[in-house]
């Protein structure tokens, strides 16, 4: 891990310079929040202020946009372009490289969370979270689980060109179904059935319980367990399907 600061500096620089990545993973959730908040902020959703409800939902959308989708796509692109294979011949240890990527995406998500919370306060008078410790733990749990899933997913996506399409086709519907943008209470039964299996549903539920209803994380152990279990699935997939070499060789 001696090389971690060196590689971390590199990964942060790469993230910031990749305009598409920075926009879709960082800026877009903020933009959507401001737009939706302007429209529904004054309404009541499920008994709470619209803007607060949406803020919690956007934290959910933000985590899958950044550490799940963003990380997954970047990993596929780097693998297919031969960069990872090139790195394997250097003394840079694999865990150091992965750690640097993870920390970069986690920092991006963390910064996004702060921006969302402050924007919500400034634009829509949403109060600061009442249970900051619980919220931080929930966000950390979600980030860990979804980054494991993102790395795991990268092992299944074969081409760099298709990676954006495949990953978007997975995480965007999931964000909708899990209630990031509106309440799932009005969904028809079959959509609710799907939502009940998705990890993001439970994560957003956790965020809403902690932020809106003042719950503490250890009273929500069912949701915590589901998110953690999905994280383990992601970890197993990541360990078994991770490749350094391009999957599509000429």
């Amino acid at each position, binding site marked *: 891990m001696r090389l971690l600061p*060196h590689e971390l500096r*590199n990964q942060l620089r*790469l993230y910031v310079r990749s305009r598409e990545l920075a926009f879709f993973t960082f800026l877009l959730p903020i933009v959507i929040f401001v737009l939706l908040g302007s429209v529904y902020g004054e309404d009541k959703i499920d008994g709470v202020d619209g803007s607060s409800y949406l803020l919690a939902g956007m934290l959910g959308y933000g985590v899958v946009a950044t550490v799940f989708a963003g990380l997954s796509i970047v990993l596929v692109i780097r693998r297919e*372009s*031969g960069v990872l294979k090139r790195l394997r*011949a*250097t*003394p840079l*240890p694999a865990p150091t490289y992965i750690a640097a990527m993870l920390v970069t995406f986690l920092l991006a998500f963390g910064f996004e969370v702060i921006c969302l919370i402050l924007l919500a306060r400034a634009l829509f008078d949403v109060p600061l979270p009442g249970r900051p410790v619980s919220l931080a733990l929930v966000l950390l749990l979600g980030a860990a689980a979804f980054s494991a899933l993102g790395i795991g997913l990268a092992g299944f996506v074969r081409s760099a060109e298709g990676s954006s399409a495949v990953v978007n086709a997975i995480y965007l519907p999931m964000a909708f179904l899990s209630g990031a943008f509106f309440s799932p209470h009005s969904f028809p039964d079959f959509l609710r059935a799907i939502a009940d299996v998705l990890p993001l549903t439970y994560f957003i539920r956790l965020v809403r319980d902690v932020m809106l209803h003042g719950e503490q994380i250890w009273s929500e152990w069912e949701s915590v367990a589901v998110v953690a279990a999905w994280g383990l699935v992601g970890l197993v997939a990541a360990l078994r399907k991770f490749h350094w070499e391009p999957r599509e060789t000429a």
Partner: protein
Amino acid sequence: MNAVEVTGLRKAYGTTEALRGVSFEIHAGEVFSLLGPNGAGKTTTVEILEGYRNRDAGDATVLGADPNRAGGEWRQRIGVVLQQSELYPNLTVHEMIALFAGYYERPRDVDEVLGLVGLEEKRDARVRALSGGQKRRLDLAVALAGDPELLVLDEPTTGFDPAARRAAWETIRSLRALGKTILLTTHYLDEAEQLADRVAVLRDGKIVAAGTPAELTGATPATEIRFRRNGEEVVLHTEDPTRVLNELTGEALAQGLELEGLTVRRPTLEEVYLSLTEGEA
């Protein structure tokens, strides 16, 4: 001490045997070129030596270690240029070299490396703005950044224009002068002829010839004699050029004719290579 020793290397992909008992050695400080048609097993051999592939049988020792069991210490001493690899498109040339230099304990100075590959003018250009040939040069620069003892270059000058190719040859020559060992695979026979101390020709997973370029071209007995007579090109191959020339020139002189465009030459490495690798196995 040999930099690389390979004995009886075997590798199969499913039912296809890619390597069927390959043996060769590379002396420390020499430029060694591995030649062969596509599918002969060059890249498989090179990737086994780099530690990317497991061999099915045989021994491989690279800088005193087994590539499959070697660790970070070993990787400090090896530089690799793959056949195809992209780099990070949004970094500048300088940042790219400095990044890789930072992975090594005793790297070269970044600006010195820029000079070695001739990319000084592109120091602050983004990688995605480089031409194909410039990217290849950057590939070489990145491999040099760690100041390795052994360089493994898989077709490094593909896509270079002639001037860039000459410049790359100069770089390789100066690296050799510094005492580096270089393993080079190439399709360019003139490159092998110019640079290599020794070559080996791989065909269908076996080495069919090995030695210095002079030994390989010397081993072929026939000399080519070429001239024009009555506007027609005449090409002769003979193992007894002195006598044949004597007869030809004697005849021509007796008839008061010129043997126009007369050339007498030994086969090039390319011709030797083609004769070794074409036709029936």
